[in-house]
């Protein structure tokens, strides 16, 4: 459990680490009140959707799509006679640097369950699945326990609280693939097939899990719902002075004193969050920050220090809020080595379905690997840029952009390091600087 700090928290308020996750603790905090209210008062589903829209709750998984809008894509007929309708919670959390959803599942799983149930009520779903990535198997087991508690208490299942609202929620775990965080690949995985994304259209709201209308939301997005409804959409919106409402869990890692999860209102200046996390480790100078998970463009440290943590602020700075996974890099980082590691990740995780990603990520990695290992060639940097333009926008899913943006941004802000590598066949950042303070390297010549 790594929720280390917060500023006016909402989702993580009142938690006793990961010891207060049981149903009775959640209820003691006011949990399931909103679900009860919505059912007992027979709140119009459209009204709930309106509140979510008023709150300007944007998807917390990385894409930032407004949740209220997504919910209104579901067919309005709520006809279950032809089959099921699904609410899916995407807890695949594969974006490197992101580890907030696992803490939500560890510390506040019932918020996720209540959020899923209310979402199901609002969009007309009768079945829910929480897709949890297989690497956090114990938390998948914990979520199953939480589901059992919720079922026993009658908050999920058939005819909840004596109404005709039914929502069966299941947990499903993945087997270790980043691409299964992509919503349609996630659906394929649940269906027992290879986690390869589907082309869109058709969209999941029309043809999703098993061909049925489906809405997929991130863990944090769904966990926010009960709190959003409790305070009302407008109040949620006003929790910060940003253009979209609410707080955000940021997973901050890398060269900071206290890497972990922090819940702060959107729009909080990065400098404030960095201070909360204890600042750059050892008081070193900040060099670069990846602000929203490795598929978002890297920013130079000084730029990041002047940026507010919201969608608009980061877009203005030339990057994206993404999943809120912040990776801080200090001056000991060789940016070429860092990009090599990222390129390797994208090459490994490509599902292999479509040509630009399957071959492109392989090619990108090979070039960057050569550059890092002293075999770079004169035209490599231009070639890298040109290749990324042939990958991004040409693929079935956003993986193409995810693999391309890091390369483009590293070259944009740190091109001199790459040029140095090609010319001198070694890192610009001296090896002893790279290894100083590292618990990994013990001074041998090979990297």
């Amino acid at each position, binding site marked *: 459990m790594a929720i280390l700090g917060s500023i006016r928290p909402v989702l993580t308020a009142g938690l006793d680490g990961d010891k207060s996750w049981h149903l009775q603790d959640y209820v003691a905090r006011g949990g399931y009140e909103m679900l009860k209210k919505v059912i007992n008062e027979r709140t119009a589903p459209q009204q709930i959707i309106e509140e979510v829209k008023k709150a300007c709750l944007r998807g917390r998984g990385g894409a930032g799509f407004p949740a209220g809008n997504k919910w209104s894509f579901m067919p309005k007929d709520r006809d279950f006679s032809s089959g099921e309708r699904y609410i899916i919670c995407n807890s695949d959390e594969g974006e490197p640097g992101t580890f907030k959803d696992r803490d939500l599942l560890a510390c506040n799983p019932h918020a996720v369950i209540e959020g899923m149930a209310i979402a199901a009520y609002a969009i007309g779903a009768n079945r829910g699945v929480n897709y949890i990535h297989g690497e956090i198997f114990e938390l998948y087991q914990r979520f199953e326990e939480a589901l059992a508690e919720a079922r026993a208490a009658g908050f999920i299942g058939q005819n909840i609280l004596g109404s005709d609202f039914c929502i069966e929620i299941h947990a499903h775990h993945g087997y270790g693939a980043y691409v299964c965080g992509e919503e349609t690949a996630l659906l394929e995985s649940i269906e027992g097939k290879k986690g390869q994304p589907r082309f869109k259209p058709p969209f999941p709201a029309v043809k999703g899990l098993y061909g049925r209308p489906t809405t997929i939301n991130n863990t944090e997005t769904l966990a926010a719902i009960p709190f959003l409804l409790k305070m009302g959409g407008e109040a949620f919106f006003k929790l910060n002075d940003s253009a979209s409402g609410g707080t955000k869990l940021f997973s901050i890692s890398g060269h900071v004193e206290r890497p972990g999860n922090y819940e702060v209102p959107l729009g909080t200046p990065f400098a404030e969050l960095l201070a909360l996390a204890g600042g750059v480790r050892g008081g070193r100078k900040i060099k670069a920050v990846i602000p929203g998970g490795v598929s978002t463009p890297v920013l130079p440290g000084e730029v990041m220090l002047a940026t507010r943590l919201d969608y608009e602020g980061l877009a203005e700075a030339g990057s994206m809020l993404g999943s809120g996974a912040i990776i801080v890099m200090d001056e000991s980082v060789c940016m070429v080595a860092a990009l090599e590691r990222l390129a390797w990740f994208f090459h490994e*995780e490509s599902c292999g379905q479509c040509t630009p990603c*399957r071959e492109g990520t392989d*090619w990108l990695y090979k070039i960057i690997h050569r550059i890092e290992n002293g075999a770079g060639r004169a035209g490599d940097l231009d070639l890298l840029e040109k290749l990324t333009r042939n990958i991004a*926008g040409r693929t079935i899913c956003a993986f193409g952009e995810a693999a391309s943006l890091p390369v483009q941004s590293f070259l944009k802000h740190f091109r001199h390091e790459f040029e140095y590598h090609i010319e001198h066949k070694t890192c610009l950042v001296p090896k002893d600087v790279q290894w100083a303070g590292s618990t990994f390297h013990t001074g041998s010549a090979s990297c």
Partner: protein
Amino acid sequence: MGWQHFSHGVSVMLEIEIDGKKAAVPEGCLVIDAARQLGVYIPHFCYHKKLSIAASCRMCLVEVENSPKPVPACATPVTAGMKVFTHSPLAVEAQKGVMEFLLANHPLDCPICDQGGECQLQDLAVGYGAGRSRYCEEKRVVFKKDAGPLVAMVEMSRCIHCTRCVRFGQEIAGIMELGMAGRNSHAEIETFLGRSVESELSGNMIDLCPVGALTSRPFRYSARGWELQGRRSVSPHDALGASLLVQVKQDKVMRVLPFENEEVNECWLSDKDRFSYEALNSTERLLKPMLKQGGEWQEVTWNVALDYVAHGLKDIAAESGSDALAALTSPHSTLEELALLAKLMRGLGSDHIDCRLRQCDFSTDGQRLGAPWLGLRLNEIADLDAVLVVGSFLRQESPLLAQRLRQAAKGKTKVSLLSVGGEAPFIRLDTSVAVAPSQLAAKLAAVLKAAAEEKGASVPEALRDIVPCAETRRMAAALLVGEKKAVLLGNVASQSPFAGALHALAAQLAELTGASLGFIGEAANSVGGYLVKAVPEQGGRMFERPMQACVLLGVEPELDCADGVSAMAALKQAKTVIVLSAFKSAAALDYADVLLPLAPFTETSGTFVNCEGRVQSFQAVVKAAGEARPGWKVLRVLGNLLGLEGFEYESSEAVRDEVLGSGAAFAAGLDNGMQTKEVVLPVAVQGIERIADIPAYFADPLVRRASSLQKSEAAATPVARMAAETLKNLGLTAGDKVRVRQGQGSAELLVVADDSVPPSCVQVAGAHLATAGLGRLSGSITVERA
């Protein structure tokens, strides 16, 4: 994963523009299809009009107005007012980019790759790629896979992951035998562990593969595409009559490909059609006329041979009466051969000619109203609301008909199967019932009774004691709904000793439910044989009367007949046996007195009438080998030598036009009706009953000699298949060696457990030397440990 992209009911037409050309196309149409309609070709690999959309190759990316990203034409439905640009700078850049990526890991094998010259990757690289690739890294290697003797997967590094082969297995063949394993650039197309590719349609994957990853193993390294001349022909095997493109180099048939014919075989071929050509160049080809004199075989000239035959026939007719003359002809013979042989025999005064070699129940002879046929056109199958198939090993008898049923079953068609088990048809069946062959009629009677009860119609007296089970009620119910229904009888039914009863029951069921009745058909010219009266007019069983002279046309009776043992016995006591065949077999050298070399279908002009009654004529594609002659010519000359009238034909077309009338696309005289529909239900067989499937690759003399097909799993030596329960009752286990006995014959076989075989039955394939000694293809059989 495809999606239904056509709206139901009347299509709305949308105005769109492609490359400046305006058109109106139906709503739901894909950009790539709309473009094709306008004559604009959009490059693609993974898209195929018969397969689901993958949209993964990205070669078809085109620019669409108001979209910053290019869109895949194969997965994008048209919208009103859409403007598509297939050659804009963005589209061209996308195409070049994708092509460069495809070539990145692709080995530069063109000089040694079979696909060279007929390779989509080559063609699109030239047409849509950049002039050179900037890839200067290592290429990944993929190791070869074993996919059996037909489809070569030796150079899988060439694979571009279009997944057409995967989708073909899942969707067309009905069994997924290849899949993409792994991830990223190490993703590979593989077979399942320990399995190879065994579908009877697997050869189509060779056509589908756009590169040289899946190639034809028999054809490997033998010729370049541009060296081959393509000539059209028609399949001589099953009753579907697929259109062929036979490719020839220096007068030798090198390869057979499908000729696209949407009405018949669409763009597919069964493996039998595709690979049987190897038999044409077999060392077993009979190349010179031969005569047995004093127990010794001698090669003679045609004149000598035909003279001998003519005299032989005349002498025996004079001595023993024309009743002692008989002719057996293969239903794979051309229409002209069948017609002239029939004319010849009748000219000599004999009615004893038959092409229905594996039939043993002739009770409908004299009752039929016309030539039995499929009862509907092949392209009407998709429109059926329901179809009941009775007594068929669908995938062996007519793989492409089975494929049409497979696709229909995915739509609105309810396909039910009432048969003898032993084969997974890979069709989503509404109901499936498997019974012992002698109980097939009783079960069909139950469906009839259920339908009658459902409809409130009177039940035939003979069915009084029958109690329909839930499945037969379901089959009946399906046939009572909707407009277009069909009841189809397969070869198990027509070869059954109770074929007459099955025909009568099916006819009554069809009439009661308003369904069409039809026969799947046993061979390329089963329908043709009836039309030209190559069947006895007065009915009867060929081998039950002693014959003194027998003419065999394209037949190997020990393997091709309903009771090979009886057939051989009858031949042995005949005075003279005249064999016209493309092959000389050891058996023929024994029982024959004359061997006349026949030109197979590639070396003669001729006609096949398929199960729809479709008249399909073809020309020879190569010169006849050795001294082989077209059968129609041999019979014409023989007719002259015998002094018979009406044997003056100058061409095979003249023969065809005489029997069918000229210019007919479909033959007349097709009728599945019967004069009487009385039913006598057969008595069930006691003890263990034999089910004799005729494996596709044993079914006719040509395919038996196709070397690559004979190496496949489907051509393995017959075994004794029984359900686990049956095995237990007999005290046997899988892997035991058993001796099976029928009548005077026996065979030693290995035991295989197969729960799809009905209880108290053993499935022992026919048409194979290992089991030919058993004689009859049905009836009771004993099984004991060997």
